[in-house]
């Protein structure tokens, strides 16, 4: 156990509490989810670990989001953890809950933070559009057009334009980097990239591109290769990498700029 987890544990319940939690979880899992006792127990467990969630939320406090919002996101993560924790697995709840809550907080920063004040209506519009884009992409097998999004959401096209423009205001750069570590699980880079390196190498001979590519975070490099070596669309890449198309778009844009800067004035 790391030092920080130890502090978290002390702050929450202590050793005895943990044993008690294990009992509560065992009882919870034996109950029907729609029984009254289930609801009670679930509430009790969430409340019991709330200080842990809030403590984790505090780690993100200097990133421009209000503490209240962060605590809400962390609480949501905690509730998910309580619902999904399986005591049979032999790990204790905290080892499961801490990464779950952190994951929820990271996702919040990845998907929903803004570099400038954006009216709430526009944020909601943007969220609705993001949802529609995901759904339509899956159904159509390609990225939707603004008019398809408008029809799907039953909104005027002008509203969709406004919502799409808002995505330009979304923060991406520094936080993506800050949160990079620990987000790498689930990206199976090796398979796709290994076989394509020769193609890329042929291009980068003259451009000293290789050292720059090496410096890129794994995910950015993968996205770059999928787009410019495999010639996949951003929507297809989004599906493979597990982020939204808009996020792929931002990452590509940022990566290309970074490469340009790295290559300097070379023509």
């Amino acid at each position, binding site marked *: 156990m790391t030092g920080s987890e130890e502090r978290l544990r002390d702050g929450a319940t202590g050793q005895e509490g943990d044993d008690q939690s294990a009992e509560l979880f065992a009882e919870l899992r034996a109950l029907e989810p729609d029984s009254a006792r289930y609801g009670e127990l679930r509430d009790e467990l969430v409340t019991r670990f709330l200080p842990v969630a809030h403590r984790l939320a505090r780690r993100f406090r200097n990133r421009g989001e209000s503490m209240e919002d962060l605590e809400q996101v962390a609480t949501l993560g905690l509730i998910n953890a309580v619902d999904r924790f399986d005591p049979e697995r032999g790990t204790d709840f905290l080892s499961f809950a801490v990464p779950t809550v952190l994951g929820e907080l990271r996702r919040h920063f990845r998907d929903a933070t803004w570099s400038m004040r954006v009216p709430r209506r526009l944020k909601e519009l943007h969220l609705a559009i993001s949802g529609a*884009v995901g759904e339509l992409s899956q159904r159509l*097998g*390609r*990225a*939707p*057009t*603004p*008019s*398809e999004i408008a029809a799907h959401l039953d909104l005027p096209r002008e509203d969709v*334009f406004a919502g*799409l*423009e808002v995505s*330009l205001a979304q923060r991406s750069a520094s936080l993506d980097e800050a949160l990079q570590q620990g987000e790498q699980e689930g990206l199976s880079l090796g398979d796709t990239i290994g076989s394509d390196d020769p193609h890329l190498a042929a*291009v*980068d001979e*003259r*451009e000293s*591109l290789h050292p720059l590519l090496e410096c890129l975070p794994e995910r950015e490099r993968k996205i770059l290769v999928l*787009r*410019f070596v495999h*010639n996949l*669309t*951003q*929507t297809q890449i989004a599906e493979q990498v597990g982020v939204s*198309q*808009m996020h*792929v*778009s931002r990452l*590509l*844009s940022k990566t*290309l*700029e970074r*490469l*340009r800067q790295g*290559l300097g*004035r*070379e*023509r």
Partner: protein
Amino acid sequence: MSEAESTINEPISDDVSFDVEVRVAATPQHLSAIRAVAADLAMRADFDLDAIADLKLAVDEACSTLVMHAASGTELSCAFRCTPDEIAVRAVVPSADGTPPRRDTFSWRVLSTLADFVTASVSRDGTPTRVRIDLVKKRTTVVNA
């Protein structure tokens, strides 16, 4: 017209008229205005989101390349023509040294992946010598499954 370094597959004829033209100082910090115009035009032409993003990145890459080739203190012009099937873009700067962008670079690969057609040329018929990139992004019709 005398198009030195003229290329394969010239997609935009020289006498074409454009719908929108943006002029900015030929420095990297003003390219965001051009990007925003490119994205807006593609969005209003009802291109799908992948094509919108591709056009934006392509215009960014083309203009960034030109900025590096521009004589100092000059302007970059980026003109757009929207037709039902495609958006054609012509970006031009007064050339610093009369050389066209190289085609063996990663940047060129990026451009040719993102756009359906792209050409670079240097024209010496006027003063000053200009370097230009033309590109065309077509509306996506069918996407391979």
